[in-house]
């Protein structure tokens, strides 16, 4: 039956061509168009944050002043952290890829509340513009963590405005989260029970729960900051009998769960890709699904592990350390299940799979180095050094951003209807892999040897620690390789839009519903209702060399 449909998958109008003009995009309610606009905006902010990162790395390539002074450096690392966290990595996968594929994966026409979806995009744009303007014009240099009392007492204290920006962005997250939860609950086809959902949907669902529950705390923090500034009620400022450490509790009560907002969707993408490119049913489906929920719940109970040296009580540190280790177990379960999925599969190393395997490698390092930081006595030595910088870049960039890239490559044919060059894709993946490790691995060593983070210079440290120079030098060189890889990636992906060959319906042989519709999908996603089955059963799909497509055989 589908053999017939394959012949002209692009004859019908698709969501890209159905309407034209700027207004048709700005006022669209189509989740796919909203997803594409999110994707473009988020990648633009990634570029911005990346430029800041290169400035930081270039300043540190040699001791002494290289390209900027100390205040500019402090401003730069704040901009890098804030833009990457709030404008790239938190909204990244759910708002861009999730928006596009979640409804299609569920066989639905759209999300549950399309208008809310558009509102969330406008909130994102509004919040992002406000945030970036505040950051740049306010000369904010507090670090993205806005710790009090530094943030409330510096000359240019745009911290309240910056937190307002973060909170508007938080509302955009909440809107998306509400939408996803409602969509998953109400719009699944009758034949798709909870345990027939793709694991990416499980991951987005777990993420949405965290977004919904954690983001309001950011709002509370803002309210308290504003009350303190406007009415002099002491919450955080010691001169008003406030407690600066309280701010850290509030901040991490949101920002630690936010770490799982970042990583869970990446794990979801990895689960999809590892299975599809092994042509084998995902191993331990229920364990992977439950482990997402477990991570989401445990993630709320571990914020105090950012504060082992803050002066919090010994009892609090003990409890937070123990709970922190509990999060490592569901993560380990996922890794072992991915490995078992590879076993006896039929593994094809196309670009998305290269990134999927890279995720396992880099997340392995990022996750295991977390153990050093969860353990109390070692954390005392390692916290606030480059060790922690390396650790969170391995998890945030090495894992989440790599999974995001994997997802972009995996769904690129579906989103754009075009195939990119797989050879360029693989070569870029290799360059990115080398560049990433070149950048961040030396930071583990510098950090565990005592190099503190957020230092604009290390010249005065060199007499006693000559090795710090080598670490920074390697790191900066690696960052240029990473930049080169991203430029290449932008190049071949953009070329594919103009000159790529048309994508078939199912180029990689996925068994999810999104591969049953044409590439790109029509406005209503499906012209005929999709056949709901096990999302990881590949036995009915056969590769058809004539159309380069995987087709369903009875």
């Amino acid at each position, binding site marked *: 039956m589908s053999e017939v449909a394959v012949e002209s998958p692009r004859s019908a109008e698709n969501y890209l061509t159905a309407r034209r003009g700027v207004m048709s995009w700005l006022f669209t309610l189509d989740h796919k168009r909203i997803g594409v606009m999110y994707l473009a905006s988020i990648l633009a902010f990634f570029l911005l944050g990346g430029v800041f990162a290169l400035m930081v790395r270039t300043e540190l390539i040699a001791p002494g002043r290289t390209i900027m002074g*100390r*205040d500019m450096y*402090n401003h730069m690392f704040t901009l890098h952290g804030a833009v990457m966290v709030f404008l790239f990595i938190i909204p990244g996968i759910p708002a861009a890829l999730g928006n596009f594929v979640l409804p299609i994966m569920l066989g639905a026409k759209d999300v549950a509340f399309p208008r809310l979806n558009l509102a969330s995009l406008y909130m994102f744009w509004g919040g992002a513009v406000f945030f970036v303007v505040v950051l740049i014009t306010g000369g904010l*240099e507090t670090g993205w963590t806005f710790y009090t009392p*530094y943030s409330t*007492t510096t*000359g240019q204290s745009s911290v309240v405005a910056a937190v307002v920006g973060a909170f508007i962005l938080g509302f955009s997250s909440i809107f998306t989260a509400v939408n996803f939860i409602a969509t998953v609950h109400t719009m699944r086809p009758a034949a798709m029970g909870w345990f027939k959902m793709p694991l990416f949907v499980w991951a987005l669902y777990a993420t949405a729960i965290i977004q919904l529950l954690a983001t309001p705390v950011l709002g509370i923090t803002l309210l308290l900051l504003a009350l303190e500034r406007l009415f002099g009620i002491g919450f955080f400022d*010691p001169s008003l009998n*406030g407690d600066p*450490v309280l701010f850290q509790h509030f901040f991490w009560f949101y920002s630690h769960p936010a770490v799982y907002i970042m990583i869970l969707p990446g794990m979801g993408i990895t689960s999809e890709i590892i299975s599809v490119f*092994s*042509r*084998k049913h995902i191993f*331990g489906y229920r364990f992977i699904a439950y482990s997402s929920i477990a991570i989401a719940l445990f993630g709320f109970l571990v914020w105090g592990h950012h504060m082992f*040296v*803050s*002066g919090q009580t010994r009892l609090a540190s003990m409890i937070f350390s*123990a709970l922190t280790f509990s999060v*490592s*177990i569901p993560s380990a*379960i996922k*890794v072992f*299940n991915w*490995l078992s*999925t*590879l076993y*006896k*599969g*039929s593994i*094809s190393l196309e670009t998305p799979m290269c990134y999927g395997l890279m995720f*396992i490698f880099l997340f*392995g390092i990022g996750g*295991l180095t977390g153990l*050093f930081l*969860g*353990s*109390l*006595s070692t954390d*005392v*030595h390692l*916290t*606030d*050094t480059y060790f922690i910088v390396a650790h969170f870049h391995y998890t945030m960039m090495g894992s989440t951003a790599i999974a995001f890239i994997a997802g972009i490559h995996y769904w690129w044919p579906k989103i754009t209807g075009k195939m990119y060059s797989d050879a360029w894709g693989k070569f870029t993946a290799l360059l990115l892999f080398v560049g990433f490790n070149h950048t961040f691995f030396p930071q583990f*060593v510098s950090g565990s*040897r*005592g190099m*503190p983070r*957020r*230092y604009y210079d290390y010249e*005065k*440290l060199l007499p*006693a*620690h*000559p*090795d710090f*120079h*080598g*670490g920074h030098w*390697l790191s900066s060189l690696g960052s240029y390789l990473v930049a080169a890889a991203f430029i290449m990636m932008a190049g071949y992906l953009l070329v594919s839009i103009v000159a790529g060959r048309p994508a078939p319906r199912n180029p990689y042989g996925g068994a999810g519903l999104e591969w049953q519709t044409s590439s790109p999908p029509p406005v209503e996603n499906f012209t005929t209702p999709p056949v709901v089955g096990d999302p990881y059963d*590949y036995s009915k799909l056969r590769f058809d060399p004539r159309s380069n497509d995987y087709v369903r055989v009875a």
Partner: protein
Amino acid sequence: MNQILSSLAAIWGPWAQSGSQPYFWLPDRASTFARDVDWVFNFILYVSLFFFALIVALMCWFVLRYRRRPDRQEVEESPHHNTALELLWSVIPVILVCLMFYYGFEGYMDMRTPPRDAYEINVIAKKWAWLFKYPNGYVDDKLYVPAAEPVRLVMTSDDVIHSLYIPDFRVKQDLVPGRYTKMWFKAIKPGEYSLFCAEYCGSGHADMLSKVVVLEAAEFAAWLREAGDFLKKLPPEKAGEELHRRRGCAQCHSVDGKAGTGPTLLGIWGETHRMTDGSTAVVDENYVRESILEPGKRIREGFVNQMPTFKGVLSDEEIGYLIAYIKSLGGSAKGESP
């Protein structure tokens, strides 16, 4: 080939300077905590290396062995669920992380429980200087401690959060304004060790550096007696110069004419300066004293106040020395007192 190798060596050359380092991963072990912390570090390191090697080896082996090839298109039959296996790879990590937690906790409790007889030193952190106050009232910008004796630091901050970090001792503790935090350690060998600020505290964060000087117990006692009255042995302007350096004034107030976070001290004595509120002030004894004790009261035009008060930190006598030093740096009324 040789060319490639030598260019690689050139790139990675600076990294090879790490030869001076006794351990690859960790700095020198100079306190009693270092051995315990390093033991936990190495335990976690070897467990992690084992699992990482296992994961990567399996991944590579599976990818090579089960690669899709023209003669191998189909998957082989294998189950996609196995509860026993899932439990196995949940329970083993649970046991291992319980051990990691326990060892880390044990070491941490030790770090947070100072012995009763510890030698006490008060620490005040401010942007961007460290002040160490000894039992006899002497204050220094370096932390001198006796070897093989427990030392307890009672610490607070005058402005924002700082963090005292001594890598070779494996200790770190935040200093929070408005409360006292404590830490302790026992240095094991005489020498000089780095002391860093580890919590971001603004422009001069990377300059907030000091040293721990570990002396043999007898040497330490002699040093303290000597140092306690060093000021009295110096002429006042020399004593002021020492104070300017040791109490952190130099971080913001240069003596070479360049404006830093605060105005330079060179050639200002007797000058008339415009203030941010539009008034003018003559730099004299009273103005300098007021600027030290109530820094925010009158701010020179072109500057934003970042300075914490030195009330209770500098004695009247010491302020007198600083005034003498500033006078010696010249100005229109050099040497005269109106």
